[in-house]
């Protein structure tokens, strides 16, 4: 059963078309990651689902409501972590989480939530004194204290150091274990791979691809990527794709390729044979879309 559905949703700001017939379905108790380059409309999509923005066309249903109607009963069931950390600079951690708890009909205990995000030692500190990672965890605490059925996380780990990011991942994974449906936008492919049940790639105002991380990788054409440092003075490799000092090629027959290279050139420096990662598939998808966009423009 879908918790949220978008059908042929369109949105433009002036002349700039952001969403162009977007179809999207979020299933119950999944973590759905929305990927896409900057400006691809991830935040706009989330803002329409949250009821903060109105779609120009198409239909939107979230937990049985049209979010544009801004029903309190719907807002009581969604939790939000915005892309930018919100100020509330002179409010303490305890006061803020308690205020948010008071806004919802069946909240969790503020104390429990503060402990679960690891801020119990900061309960009487004002938000301005917290580090970036702590501020973000405070945002998450405010997002989950109302016990949401659907949680929106808009680039929750952007700007965090690797340790703070891992901590937040564990927190998100814990929420998923408890059955919260989560819509996550991110630039980080490893984040989507680590957290998401399904991933949607937003390109040109539509979902260019959607599926589990495994499905998206299999969706890529080649089964392996072979890369190595080309021997000096061999013009044969001049036309290959390059990455730094190495050249690479995607192939469905990696063993055959490596054998023939070995037969011709002997030992190859820096030889790597690996399955394409989600990142490879994603970057290729964005690149192909960019080319198609130039052709159509």
């Amino acid at each position: 059963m879908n918790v949220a559905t978008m059908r042929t949703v369109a949105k433009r700001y002036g002349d700039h078309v952001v969403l162009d017939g977007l179809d999207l379905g979020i299933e119950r108790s999944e973590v759905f990651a929305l990927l896409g380059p900057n400006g691809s409309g991830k935040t706009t999509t989330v803002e329409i689902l949250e009821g903060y923005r109105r779609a120009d066309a198409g239909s939107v249903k979230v937990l049985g409501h049209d979010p544009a109607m801004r029903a309190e009963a719907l807002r009581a069931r969604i939790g939000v972590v915005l892309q930018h950390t919100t100020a509330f600079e002179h409010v303490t951690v305890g006061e803020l989480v308690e205020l948010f708890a008071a806004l919802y009909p069946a909240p969790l205990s503020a104390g429990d939530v503060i402990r679960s995000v690891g801020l119990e030692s900061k309960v009487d500190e004002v938000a301005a004194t917290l580090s970036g990672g702590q501020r973000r965890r405070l945002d998450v605490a405010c997002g989950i204290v109302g016990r949401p059925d659907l949680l929106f996380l808009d680039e929750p780990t952007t700007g965090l150091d690797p340790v703070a990011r891992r901590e937040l991942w564990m927190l998100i994974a814990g929420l998923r274990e408890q059955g919260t449906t989560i819509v996550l936008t991110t630039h980080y492919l490893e984040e989507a791979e680590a957290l998401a049940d399904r991933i949607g790639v937003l390109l040109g105002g539509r979902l260019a691809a959607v599926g589990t991380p495994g499905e998206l990788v299999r969706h890529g054409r080649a089964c392996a990527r072979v890369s190595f440092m080309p021997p000096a003075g061999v013009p044969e490799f001049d036309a290959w794709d390059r990455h730094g000092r190495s050249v690479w090629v995607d192939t469905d027959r990696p063993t055959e390729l490596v054998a023939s290279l070995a037969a011709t050139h002997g030992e190859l420096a820096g030889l790597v044979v690996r399955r394409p990662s989600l990142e490879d598939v994603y970057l290729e998808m964005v690149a192909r879309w960019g080319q198609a966009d130039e052709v159509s423009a």
Partner: protein
Amino acid sequence: MSATRDLQAAEPASRWTPSIGRLAWRRFSLELRTFRRVHEEVVFTFALPILLLVLFASIFGGEIDDTGVDVSQYFVAGMIVSAGLTVGFQSLSAQLALERHDGSLKRLALTPMPAAAYMLGKVGMVAAIVAIQTVVMFTVGVAAFGVRLPSPSGLLLLTVVATLNLVIWTLLGLAFSRLIRTPRAGAAVTLPPALVLQFISGVYLVLDEIPAGLRTIASIFPLRWAALGARQALLPDSFASAEPGGSWQTPTMLAVLMAWACVSALLAAISFRWQAEA
């Protein structure tokens, strides 16, 4: 998380609505606690009116045109209504522009917080600050400048007038904040109308000395009437003869203030937006 999650139990009744009164109270107490933490703001908010009182009493000290009324008494009445304008209109609309800019308004918009609870919290904060300012002003005025406290009936009238005045300016501030595009523009946009209005409404200058044309313009706005009401509460009845028209015009004064309260509530309701403009 120690609390386990039960999806069935978590589904609230579809008719659930948040309690405006309870949330307004929470917002109000949080606003006050937050205000108290910004020490510069606290000091300047309470020091400025005192500074002005000392300045005006020292420069224009003495009786106003043989009326038996001291300038400082007249000035205290004006400052009480001015406080509603500066705190409710100027500070609040600048604060709101900042909340819009730093994302806190957007964050609250995505919760079930009713706009009315948010607005009432703001009105409460303004009322508390104005009340404290008034007490401080009376304390300094009585101690240093021979200001007389109002009679019981005068105090009642003052409370009614000052409350209507600050509610009007707070709601107008909420509405006006829509016109402030960036937080940096806040003070620049609100200062000119506030300053002009204070001068033509008889807050600092005796109304009789203001040209009739300007006085007519001032009469459209609530500040002139609130100042008149505050003077009726604080000045001897004999001073009425020094007012334009030679009387306190109590019914007109109250009627204009109540009409403005309705208009400003309507303007705030229409122009205050939680959600995005587009």
